[in-house]
Structure formats: C-alpha cells, structure tokens
C-alpha cells in the first residue's frame, strides 16, 4: 500500500486514482473484480433457480425433499428417490475411484519413469474429453452386459445375504452407474493429484530416505501429506463432476423412480431426471418441480462441500502446506 495515499486529505476519486497508479493496486482491483464476478454469476444462477421453482415450492414446501412420489400426470412431485440415487452413485463412485486414482497418481509421480509417466498421464487426461454420450454408449455395450452376466450374479452369490445385493439383475442400476461415474472421474483425481505430488520439493523425499525410511514410508508419510491440499482439491473436482453428470448416468441407471436398497436395482439421479424430462415438461408445476430439483442439488452440494471443508479444517494444522 503506497504510504502517500493515506496522508493527504483529498477527494475520494483522486485518492483512488492516485492509489491505482501503483501496479499492485490495479492488479488487486482487477483480480477482485473477476472474483466478484464469480459470486455474481453464481448468485444469479441460484436466483433464477429460485424464481423458476416458485410454483413448485409453494405447492410442496419442505415435503418436497422427503416425498417419494413423482407423477407428472397428477402433478405430485418429490425429490427423495433422486436425492438418494445421487448420493449413492456419487459416494460409491468416489469410493471406487479415489483409492485407485490416488494409488495410480502415486505410482505415476513417484515410481514411473519420467517419460512414461508423462505419456500415460497425458493419455489419462484425454479421458476427460470423451463426451458423456460416448461414455454412456460404451457402458451400454460393455459394462451393462458384464454386469448382467457376470458381476451381478457373482456379487449376489457371494454377498447375497446383504440387502445391498439382492433382487433381479438387469445390468443397469446404481452399481453400473457408479462404475461408469468412477471411470469418468479418474482423470481428475489422477492428473491433479500427480501434479500435486510432483510439486513436492525433492528435498523432502531425500530427507526422509536419508533418515532410513523405505520408499513407501517416505511417500505415504511425507510426500502425500505435503501434497494433501492438491489431492483433496482433485477429489472435490471429481465429486462435483460426479454429482452433476447427466447423459452417461441417465443411459445406464435404469430410470426407476423408486428407492431401492439393492445396488443392483435401477434408480435415478437428480441430474439424470432433469436431463430426461426437462425437454417435455409442460404445465405449471412440472417444470417448476424439475427446477426445484436443481435447487435441491445445489443445497446438497452446499451441505456436502461444507462438511468436507469442515473435515479438512479439523484434520489440518493450518498453514502447513502453504509454504
């Protein structure tokens, strides 16, 4: 902050323009404006969702979140089956892809030869650009038959005593959708985590090894915690993608409007039903109910993000990785 500014009593405009003559102030202002624009856009989005869902909110109130009905003919709508499906598929997708993704990132960052590592990561990043629709088509031709013929029956025979794996196996359903989602979010976790791991200064690893740690101990106890923020950031990205994924999920989840405990059963997610039904939704309440679903997803993201950030705060000593 330039010291001359505060000293003299001047009109606000000339005082501001004097301060702006320093490059730092300009830079601060510009970046602040951009950051604010993000807030503005998001607020606008929430605002539009709020307005668009007015009719449905008036009619259903808070019961919307717990109601299990979805009947466009009688104008009765409820979000519960979709909330359930969204949470189940996203959670399962993360549960599958985070361990495998972080493991792969560790391998690519620490163990793999530099050129191979670069090349493979490059290819993995390409996966991010495969269109959603193509993932869906691929899944229909590969994962769905595999689920119906092999994986589903196998899970049933081994774990069939759990309500999670009971009921008929159609090939589509929560589990298939979760698998597809997990494949779709691999690139985010692997790519970003790998960069975060690579950014850890070499001295840290060398210090650990010099103290007699095995490679694994050095990686797991020193490098990974150092890159923790980056890895967690990648998980956030992946999670967000999973929550909002529409086309691929709608093609393989079976689109059933009821809640099933079994992972082999068909279900639905908020994003999938929005994508499926918005085009043909007419009338006073139907489109509003769909938009209210969008609002509910927003709320869900809000809560889950909040919980995740709280978790980070609790388990991190602040300022450690911020060198």
């Amino acid at each position, binding site marked *: 902050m330039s010291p001359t500014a505060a000293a003299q009593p001047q009109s606000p405009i000339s005082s501001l323009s004097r301060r702006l003559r320093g490059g730092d102030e300009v830079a601060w202002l510009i970046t602040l404006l951009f950051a604010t624009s993000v807030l503005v856009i998001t607020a606008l989005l929430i605002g539009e969702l709020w307005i668009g869902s007015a009719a449905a909110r008036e009619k259903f109130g808070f019961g919307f979140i717990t109601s299990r009905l*979805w009947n466009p003919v009688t104008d009765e709508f409820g979000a519960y089956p979709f909330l359930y499906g969204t949470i189940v598929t996203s959670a399962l997708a993360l549960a599958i892809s985070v361990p495998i993704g972080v493991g792969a990132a560790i391998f690519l960052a620490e163990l793999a030869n530099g050129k191979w590592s670069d090349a493979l990561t490059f290819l993995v990043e390409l996966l991010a650009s495969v269109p959603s629709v193509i993932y869906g088509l691929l899944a229909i031709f590969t994962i769905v038959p595999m689920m119906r013929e092999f994986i589903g029956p196998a899970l049933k025979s081994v774990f069939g005593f759990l309500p999670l794996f009971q009921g008929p196996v159609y090939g589509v359903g929560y589990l298939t959708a979760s698998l597809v989602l997990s494949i779709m979010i691999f690139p985010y976790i692997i790519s970003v985590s790998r960069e975060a791991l690579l950014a850890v200064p070499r001295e840290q690893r060398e210090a650990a090894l010099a103290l007699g740690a095995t490679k694994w101990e050095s990686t797991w106890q020193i490098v990974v915690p150092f890159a923790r923020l980056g890895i967690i950031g990648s998980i956030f990205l992946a999670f967000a993608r999973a929550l909002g994924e529409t086309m691929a999920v*709608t093609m393989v989840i079976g689109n*059933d*409007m009821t809640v099933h405990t079994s992972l082999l059963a068909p279900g639905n997610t908020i994003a999938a039903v929005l994508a*499926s039904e918005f*085009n*043909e*939704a*007419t*009338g006073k309440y139907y489109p509003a109910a769909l938009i209210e679903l969008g609002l509910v997803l927003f709320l869900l993201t809000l809560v889950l993000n909040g919980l995740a950030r709280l978790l980070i705060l609790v388990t991190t000593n602040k300022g450690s990785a911020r060198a």
Partner: protein
Amino acid sequence: MLSLLCAGLAPAADTINAAGATFPAPIYQKWFEEYKAKTGVQINYQPVGSGTGIKQLTEGTVDFGASDVPMTDAQIAAASKSKPLHFPTVLGAVVLSYNVPGLTAGLKFSGPTVAGMFMGTITKWNDPKIVADNPGVKLPATDLVVVHRSDGSGTSFIFTDYLSKVSPDWKSKVGAAASVSWPTGLGGNGNAGVEGFIKQTPGSIGYVELIYAIQQKMAYADVKNAAGKFVKPSFESVTAAAAGMKEMPADFRVSITDAPGAGAYPISSFTWLLIPSQFADANKKKVITEFLTWMLAEGQKDAQGLSYAPLPAAVVAKEKKQIALIK
C-alpha cells in the same frame, strides 16, 4: 446493451430455424434437404422434443415448431404472439418390440394384455392372458421385463393415450402424458435406448416407433384393434387408422389411437408441424407456405421409404385450405 449487440449480429435471412419432435425428425430432415436442393432455401430442423418445440415456438426463438402431441388450449393461449396452426405431416406407429428367445411365431396382444404388462400385473411370459392371445404358441415361463421411456416423449404420449382407452384401470391409475409415473419397468433413453435394452435383455418388452424396430431387426407384435382384429403395424394399417376417423376437427388436433375400422392399427398417430399464423417477416411466410404446399404434394411420397404412412387424401385437401390462413 445486449439488444444492441444482437442488432449488430443479426442473422442471415435465408436460414429458417425449427425445432420439435424427434419422432418425425428423419423425414423432416430429408424433406428439408430435398427442398433445399430444389429451391435453395435452408431450413434447419432440430429434434429436441415436442415439449421444447412448443416452448421455443412460444418464446419466438424458432420460426416454427413440431410436435407429436397436439398443443393444449392453455399452450395455444400462451402462444398468443404467433397463434400457431397445426399441420399434420405424416402418420406413425408405435409398436411393441420384444425379445423372447425360442419363439416359433410372432406374438399378438390385446389391449388389456398390454395394459397388464405395463401395469405390472402380468409378470411372466406364460401368463394366461398372453397365452389366450396367442393360441398354439409355446410361451416360456421367463420373467417379463418391461422397458419404457425415461425421457418425456410424444411416443410415450401416443402409447399411454392408447392404454388409457383400452384399460380404465390404466386411465385412473396412470393416465396419458408425455411423461408418466410408470408402475414398473426400466427406463431407456430415447427410442434407441429402449430398443437397445430390449435387444440385450431376454424376456423384455417395450414400445418404440416402428422405424426403430425395423432398422434394428427386432420382432414386433400384432395388436388387437377396436374392431376385434389383430393387426400388424404397417403403412396400410396406419393409414387405415387415419381414414377410419369420422370427422377431422378444423384445427386438426385429434387422437387416432384405438381407431375404428377393421384394418386399423390401434397405436397410430399423426404428427404435426406448428406454424405461426402470423409472420412479421413476409419473406419467411412465403418460404414456409410454399414449403407446406410442396410437403403436401411431393413430400408425401418420401414417407413410406422411411417407414411413415402418408396422409389420407381427405386430410391433405383440408390442410391445403388451412395454408390460406397464414398471414
């Protein structure tokens, strides 16, 4: 400020934009291609769904729309700026496609049987109702898996409209709409999704447009019509359903499911172009009215090649008169 920007970026005058139903998209796109070759006029049609087509027409973001479902009075009232007119273009059939391994003959269903399957009361292929419809055909005891549409669609409307007419139970419990609360079954995305599931899942049955079943070489059933005859879906039986209609209303909004007539296929429907009756741009009006005239004459010849049935002559004559109403 946005409108200033728009004025500066005014689009070229010779592309007409339209959007609407997916069901007739193949033939519309073929028509527009032929028409372009003939006259140089570019009409860009996008299959985004009947509901969206109506919405975009109401908002004025497209020049005309298309729908498998006639607009309701409320929708017409909302589109007060364009005051759309309905122009039937072709006829289509919704068929019951199934995948039952080991069958020796094609299957037939009566209305109540179909309703029972989609309501979830009929759960096995050797259910007495199905057996009664198909004397002499050996039916396995496999589970019956229903496949319906996950997305809202004119095709669903036509099918549920038919079911509401043949099953009072269906009418009261489920109803007819582009999107309903299906009592049972899996949802496939689009006709292709449904057909894909049926192809992959033994023991499944679902409803798709005729062209999908034909192109993917899947078996489809004969259905019992109002006159008590089991009719195979074809151009003749679909056109018969339209011809059997007693009175075509002046605004062409009519349902021909469960139509009377011995040869009529009961799950048939018109599909409509929604043309504004007043155009601000005289050039657009000229182009569109000329296209409509062409469509009713030359265009109809393309229908059968793409598995649609052409319009009956009486309907064509009536439509020609409606063209004059466009200002």
